[in-house]
């Protein structure tokens, strides 16, 4: 699945940087009904994790109240060059990953 990741390519050591992520997912709430009254089964992303060089820096538990195509923005301190890894986990065995690298001077 496609994910958009926005991480600055370069940062100074100690800078606080913003990380923005957007992934495509319908986030079906499980509370909607079709015209003939059948309940549409829930299908959402339940968990998002961001790791910076292997260490978890941000984690979120998501509920049906999160809009479709979940957008998340958060901050971290640029300590060293390396890799940011993102993971989304959801209903029906959904799993998706993405990564971005950053150079810290």
């Amino acid at each position, binding site marked *: 699945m496609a994910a958009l990741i926005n991480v600055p390519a370069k940062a100074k050591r100690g800078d606080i940087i913003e990380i923005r992520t957007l992934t495509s997912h319908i986030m079906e709430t499980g509370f909607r009904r079709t015209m003939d009254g059948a309940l549409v089964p829930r299908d959402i992303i339940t968990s998002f994790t961001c790791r910076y060089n292997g260490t978890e820096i941000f984690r979120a*538990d998501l509920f049906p*109240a999160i*809009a*479709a195509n979940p957008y*998340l923005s*958060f901050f*971290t301190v640029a300590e060293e060059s390396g890799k940011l890894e993102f993971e989304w986990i959801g209903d029906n065995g959904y799993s998706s990953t993405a990564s971005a690298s950053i150079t810290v001077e």
Partner: protein
Amino acid sequence: MPTTRRQFLSFAGGITVAGTIPVVTLRPLEATPAMLNTAIRNVVGEAPIRTGKVKLDIPPLVENGNTVPMTVSVASPMTPDDYVKSIHVFNEKNPQPNIGNFHLNPSCGRAQVSTRIRLADTQKVVAIARLSDDSFWQVTADIVVTLAACTEEVN
């Protein structure tokens, strides 16, 4: 016995409703303030919740409840001995009271999270922050929603 047509109909309607409820478990269409309190207590426990420190940026009036931008920020130095452990966001009238739990740590540098949420009705949103000393701080915002989300029919 009912004497007028109106009385008869309301009488009959009453019987039908009373007869249905024990058989069919009705799914609540919206969370109640009691469910909101329960959801908050599940996170907070018996700890007191103080007002302040937390800021909730959300439009006071939204046209479309399907994507409502929301930013929660907490006044915190984010140092190893004074930081925000987690931010919990709740709503009053969606089918479910939880919106999201966000887990932070000192390496976040700034205690701020943005996302987009769904709101099923005009209601209040509550954001609660848990600090590293296990104190809880909250803020509440009231939002007017013109077009509801979550429970609309699928076309």
